[in-house]
């Protein structure tokens, strides 16, 4: 949530910047039927992903290296994260650890 706020503030504070995909959550990952989709999700540094739980069960979006963690997302709950560094981020659901997916972050957008 903080990341989203910061992204929004940055977008407001620098209107002269080129159209920035970070200004809105350009990517959405849905959690449905105990699966994250799409995966792998390919994005660029500084871009933001919104994760939405469409299941009746709670889920989490938790990095395997614990570098990010949504904590519990109940039904219809969502969580937004901005990826600041390049890399391949594996994540899973703490409640159903066999649910796994990946976000691939590459160099900054043009």
């Amino acid at each position: 949530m903080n990341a989203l706020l910061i992204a929004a503030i940055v977008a407001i504070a620098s209107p002269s910047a080129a159209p920035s995909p970070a200004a809105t959550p350009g990517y959405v990952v849905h959690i449905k039927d105990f699966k994250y989709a799409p995966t792998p999700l390919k994005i660029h540094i500084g871009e933001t992903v919104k994760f939405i739980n469409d299941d009746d069960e709670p889920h989490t979006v938790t990095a395997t290296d614990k570098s990010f963690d949504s904590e519990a997302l109940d039904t219809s709950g969502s969580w937004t994260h901005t990826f600041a560094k390049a890399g391949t981020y594996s994540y899973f659901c703490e409640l159903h650890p066999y649910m796994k997916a990946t976000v691939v972050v590459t160099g900054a957008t043009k």
Partner: protein
Amino acid sequence: MKRSDFLEHVSWTGAGIAWTLSASGLMTSVADARGMKTGALSFVQISDSHIGFTRPENPDVAGTLKKTIDDINAMPVQPSFVVHTGDLTHLSKPEQFDTVKGMLSQLKAPLVVMPGEHDVIGSPDNYNAAFGSKDAPQGWHSFDMNGVHFVTLVNVFNFEIDGKLGQDQLDWVTKDLAAQKASTPIVVFGHVPLYALYPQWGWTTEDGAAVLAQLARFDAVTVLNGHIHQIIQHTEGNIKFATAASTAYPQPAPGTADKPGPLKVPDGQLLGVLGYRTVGLAPTAPADVKDHSLA
């Protein structure tokens, strides 16, 4: 209930838990004081109360937990203790821990608890604030009562793949069990099933086999788990396994649905699939496991 009353209940519960976890001798003396013969005792297992769950499969999980507690308190001979095998809460929220702790403090018998994965979402901090003990900072512990050795395992803190105990806990339990005689009855508690019950749905403890190998040398072992919201009994050699019904909602039998999760049963049938378990232990007989529905 007023906040001040509630806090009194909480402090009472907290004292009860610390005492249960830390002073096994005291537990034994309490059992003796109730006139139980050495070598024979009974306890109750409840599980998966999911306080905070509000969906149609059971819109009143507090009500069904209260009924469970009332049924146990009405037993003519009170159990030596009640063990809750985890998933006290649905989403690890402080107010959910407040509610479940206040409710469980109404039990007449002492309480033994351990976390399920729903109790440690994000971190174990909220669970520890409610139920943690300085004497068992990582949750796992053992105690002896009437000649029976009880071991409580925590297989949700290292939850990367399935249930997992982790090396620290394996080292601890190895040492703990090595000190026991083969003739001592052993009872093991944990949230996630300790054997590969249905790994496709995560219903297994990844490193559970290492503990089961050490349990094989004992004459009689009973392993009691929760997590899967249904009663499944299983035997491997001298080890008897039993998973417990939930006090909140059922889940599908392994492989009978696309995925695990809350199962909606027809109206009027919910109490029949929820319940608690009594376990009687005598020196020479196998554990007497009886499941009781709330219906």
